[in-house]
């Protein structure tokens, strides 16, 4: 009876196939990972160095790639203070840790991943909701420290809870958001309107 079983439906054939397919796919994933990680390390073309927070950041349509890409411009130090590479890293790191400690991802998406209860934060730094580039930093500090009083939820009634963010923490978070907005996300979010570029 067993001699009637064609090779393509035999147990041993599929056992070998399963092992080989799994092994090959895993090796390919490792190879791709080794190729990708350097391309997304801090200071690479796609993921700029933390000191990018000293610069103006834009998000402009690129004809060649056919979507918007971050554009790093002239000097525009965050809170008017030029930071060294180390200082910038320390500030952004503190900001990222605050976002994790307060569980921002429990309501927001970052790079589009997280929860859908509140707006995506990928390009929050560039959002036209902060009135103008001149007013932006102060508005962001006020909002993060007192989200209930400064809510802009457009009639949805949904507000951000008061997470007791101190001024230092707020500044660190803003540094993190500014840095995140400089990451090349292959055109996500699409068709985004950048602050001071309306109309």
């Amino acid at each position, binding site marked *: 009876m067993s001699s009637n079983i064609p090779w393509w439906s035999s147990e041993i054939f599929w056992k070998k*196939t*399963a092992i080989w397919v799994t092994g090959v796919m895993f090796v390919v994933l490792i190879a791709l990972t080794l190729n*990708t990680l350097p391309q*997304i390390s801090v200071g690479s073309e796609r993921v700029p160095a933390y000191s990018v927070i000293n610069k103006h950041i834009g998000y402009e349509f690129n004809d060649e790639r056919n979507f918007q890409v971050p554009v790093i411009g002239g000097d525009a130090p965050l809170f008017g203070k030029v930071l060294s590479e180390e200082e910038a890293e320390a500030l952004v790191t503190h900001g990222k840790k605050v976002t994790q*400690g*307060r*569980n921002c991802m429990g*309501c927001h998406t970052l790079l589009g991943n997280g*929860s859908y209860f509140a707006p*995506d934060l990928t390009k929050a730094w560039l959002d036209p909701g902060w009135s103008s580039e001149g007013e932006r930093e102060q508005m962001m500090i006020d909002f993060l420290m007192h989200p209930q009083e400064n809510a802009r939820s457009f009639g949805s009634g949904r507000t951000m809870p008061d997470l007791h963010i101190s001024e230092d923490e707020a500044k660190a978070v803003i540094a993190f958001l500014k840095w995140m907005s400089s990451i090349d996300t292959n055109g996500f979010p699409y068709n985004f309107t950048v602050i001071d570029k309306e109309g």
Partner: protein
Amino acid sequence: MSIANLNGGQQLAVKYFIVAVVLFVAQILFGMLSGIQYLAPDFLQGVLSFNVTRTVHINAMIVWMLYGFIGSVYWLLEEESEIEVVGLKLGNLGFWVLTSAVAVVVLVFLFVQTGPGDDFTRWFVNEGREYIEAPRWADIGIVICMLIFFYNVAATFSKGKWSGIAGVLTLDLVALAGIYLAGMFYTTNISVDQYWWWWVIHLWVEATWEVLVACLMAWGLMKTLGVSRKIVTTWLYIEVALMFGSGILGIGHHYFWIGTPEYWFSIGGLFSALEPIPLVAMVVHAVYDSGVRHTKGNNNPALAWFITHAFGNFFGAGVWGFMHTLPQINLYTHGTQWSASHGHLAFFGAYATIIIAMFYIAAQYVRGQSSFGPALLGNGWKWKWALGLLNFGVVGMTVALLISGYEQSFIERAVGGSTWMGYFAAQIHPWFVQGMQWRMIFGLITSAGIVLLVWDLLTIGKHPAVEKSGQAQTAS
């Protein structure tokens, strides 16, 4: 309840199952709270804000499913290896350690909630990364308990009998535990952070968990339908080849927009588009086997849930996943209610279902019944209604979320350009709000289903109806 006629592994399995059911109920409860907050944003705001209720909702889910899997493996371990579990005492200890750790984590989530932006918070309060919010100390505890579990499994199979199912299961557990380590470090670089985060999330649900449930399915079809071991084992290898062949590189569908290079468009799009194939294959397998045997099994509720698993996995993961997996579509659907729609149907359809099937297999033994069939009290109306309500409820929620998702991807993403204002323009649109309302209505139906399910599991087979032959059974 007579736990005495169970073998050692099965007794431990029942403990895992009981905690799983409790956490399943907690999951639904906190899901309802999160859902209400969409419609009434002030509800519990500041006390249990949305980020708290949602975190408990999804973490309770991950943990109850892991408990369900661990329990399921302990359940079949002695039968499959034909010897007693090696190191069962240690396994029991692991259960209590893990359960205490879970209890502490939940209490901290509920009462401490958040902390300052320092390392202490990440180690002891909340890591703030979706699905793996559990603080670092708990991660380490989980890994230790998983090692104990793995030791039980590997040592038992090594000492007893190795089967095809045993081999696949053991290797899969190595991968499953190993992948968890990818989520256990801190980095400020959010692109690298999310790169590895997806290793945990994606390589769990679309690779290692899928293979784990394929093992359970193989065993379950032998068990409930008496399909031959040779057929299920061959089939299991086919499933593994197709699943890992598509699912491992399918991870690329999460690498479109997180800073990673553009070549992931092609790799992620192609391989994830192939992921539904093994899920179709499983439907064919399950339906064919049931048909051949005229669905005459000895445990009807378990068999019904196994079949539901095959279809739920195909629709929730296969169809709903495929719908938004190509980059051209995902650009607009990424991070919208589309993801929530898919997430609900996939986790329920693929994983909740098969674990519930295992609950019923356990219940049959615990109650000492030779069969869960027509002889059940009231012709088994409770399990039938629980099955119907849960499926109707989750499918209804899925469709409601999909409608909101369509609206959101058009109004916020395509038209509104994903700004803050675009986001809220979509959220206040009547079509979106109606979707949220229907989600709650179907959420209530789901909740009714879970109440009935728990009631049924607590009572099924306790008082068997009068047998068809007419002889009265003694009520226990």
